[in-house]
């Protein structure tokens, strides 16, 4: 762990001393022929490799969508697993082009890291998981508990805030990776495991007896998760941002990976604009006119991505909730493509 950080820091120092920030990310990616995408070290539903080494998850699909928009080929992505504490350094040093790794959008991360959040792919909140045998029904009953947490996360700070605000004592044990944290929780080192609620459900699947554990009802924080890009390259920022918007817009318009070709032939003015037969929005982004078609064919719309990875069609079975479209009671909303 330390060596990775050290190597990245040296790379960062070297990169910073060699030349000013390279503002040509799109050109760099095209020349390289592959998108370098920072993901987690394995969080089911968001980014995790299967037994054949193929990466899946919402965060993975975001990168596949960007690759599809650029290369018309969702496989031209190199996934770089990053730990919670190495992720920003990897982005700053240019090791990755985009960080798509269940990362919470906060003001300090947006302003002091030399990076920008491009939008929200998943509205999450921090929760707690305990063993059912403890007979605890609320997070407010956790006074004097031992809590396992992954180091370098907003989770760690929310935890301190929550226990302080509720005047409760606790013991924190912080681990370097998600898997180490879960292992210590399972070994009984701590009473409580805390992370974003989606992560709790995902990690519960990894436990030997998932049914012996329960997620407490309290959500103690706002955790809007989204991809990040480096400061100083507005074109690249726009591409990543509008790839997210394209995913949401297509769901709103009922465009799916299956019917996209039919929809492209329809004489509806909005469909024609979005799918590129009218206007040249794709070219203004530095892409091609059919960029949205490429994205939807590769990954499907936001609803399909959600269902396949974390929703009803996945082992996690998480309800849409806040992540539903704005006109269906959720928060997912994209500015118009026009």
């Amino acid at each position, binding site marked *: 762990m330390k060596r990775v950080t050290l190597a990245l820091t040296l790379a960062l120092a070297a990169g910073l001393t060699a030349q000013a920030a390279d503002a040509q990310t799109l050109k760099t990616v095209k020349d390289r022929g592959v998108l370098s995408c920072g993901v987690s070290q394995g969080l089911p539903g968001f980014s995790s490799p299967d037994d054949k080494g193929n990466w899946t998850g919402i965060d993975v699909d975001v990168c596949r969508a960007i690759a599809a928009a650029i290369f018309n080929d969702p496989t031209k992505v190199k996934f770089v697993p990053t730990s919670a504490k190495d992720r920003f350094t990897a982005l700053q040093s240019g090791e990755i082009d985009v960080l798509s790794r269940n990362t919470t959008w906060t003001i300090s991360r947006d302003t002091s890291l030399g990076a920008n959040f491009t939008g929200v792919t998943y509205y999450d909140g921090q929760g707690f998981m305990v063993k059912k045998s403890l007979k605890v029904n609320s997070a407010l009953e956790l006074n004097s508990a031992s809590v396992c947490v992954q180091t*370098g996360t907003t989770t760690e700070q929310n935890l301190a805030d929550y226990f302080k605000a509720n005047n409760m004592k606790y013991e924190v044990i912080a681990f370097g990776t998600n898997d180490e944290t879960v292992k210590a929780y399972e070994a009984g080192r701590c009473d409580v495991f805390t992370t974003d609620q989606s992560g709790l459900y995902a990690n519960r699947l990894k436990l030997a007896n998932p049914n012996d554990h329960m997620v407490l009802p309290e959500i103690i924080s706002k955790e809007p998760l989204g991809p990040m890009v480096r*400061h100083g390259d507005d074109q690249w920022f726009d591409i990543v941002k509008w790839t997210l918007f394209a995913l949401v817009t297509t769901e709103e318009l009922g465009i799916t990976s299956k019917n996209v070709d039919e929809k492209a032939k329809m004489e509806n003015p909005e469909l024609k604009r979005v799918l590129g037969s009218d206007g040249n929005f794709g070219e203004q982004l530095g892409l091609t006119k059919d960029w949205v078609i490429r994205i939807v064919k590769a990954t499907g719309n936001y609803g399909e991505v959600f269902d396949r990875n974390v929703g009803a069609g996945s082992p996690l079975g998480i309800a849409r909730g806040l992540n539903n479209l704005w006109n269906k009671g959720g928060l997912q909303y994209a500015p118009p493509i026009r």
Partner: protein
Amino acid sequence: MSTEARKPPAQIALKIRRVLGGKTGWNGIVVQFVFAAILGWIGYEIVSNARANLENQHIAAGFGFLRNNAGFDVNQTLISYTGSDTFLRVFVVGLLNTLVVSVVGIVFATVLGFVVALCRLSPNWLLSRIGEIYVEIIRNLPLLFQILFWYLAVLAALPNPRQSISLLGIAFISNRGLVIPQPIGQAGLDPFLLVLGFGIVAVLALRIYARRALFQRGQMIRIWPYVLGLLFGLPLATMLLVGLPFTFELPQLKGFNFAGGSRIIPEFVALTLALSTYTAAFIAEIVRAGILSVHKGQMEAGASLGLSRGTTLRLIVVPQAMRVIVPPLTNQYLNLTKNSSLAVAIGYPDLVSVWAGTSLSQTGQAIEIIAMTMGVYLLISLLTSAIMSVYGWRVSRSLGA
């Protein structure tokens, strides 16, 4: 015409020339100055360039963040610390945690290493085989794996706090660690410490006196009854006179965990165990090499004087072996200290975990934090080396080498 003696050459100028220029004289000095200037210039360029680029990319820079609130908690703190303290304090907390695990690890590793080495050298077949097996197994397995093994083994073997193992009802062992009664100072504390301190000083003085008597006048003085009296009798008498120096606060099970008492966390135990057993295997080999380097005639000479094997080792062989042992032993101490940074794998809050880990990711100031961390490890290592050099010098001097 008078003959004048040739002026002696200016010693200082000569010395400078020799130190800086070596055999090449003044030319060499010029080359060295130019080289130093180029190095300095490159260093300056790197720093100023990095600073300008950080500013261009709007990445926060500088050490102002040290005064900001950290906002996260740490499991083991040797000084008082809460989430509302500053990052600077987090740094100190992490540093102390690294130091305590290193020092305790070094002590255990040294003792265990010497014991294993003596086992391996023992004429007893079983003992020497045990020593050999220990060394061959421990030093050939990766350290990270051993740390995880001890951690998971320790955790798996221990019950949860509600079923904790009670030691006479005052200390408890569970998978939350070892909870022991916490001493709380009472009125009698100051005189007690004063007397204890006096006892220790007096014992040391007595020892020096006894050694001098032995070496200069050949007179054996039996000092242990005095030592016992000074270290135990005197403090006990004080206690009877002015009352107990401290009382103990007993730990009690409240809710999930024990309240009151002091606690040794399992992460610390596992890390210390792994580091000291691992390093002990290397130290054992170094000690064995050192002892074997002493000519066997020394052992035989001791035997012919009627000294027992243990006494010969202690008085004759080990002091000579120390000359060979100390330099590589220093390396092992440095390795142990640096290896303690693997702590992050089992959640022990050492410097790398809380500072180069959590604090780095909370502030994003990688360059400053990694530079500080590297600086601290360098400083610890140089200090350890310096102490060991002084010790090695004393050993050589006492042998008249």
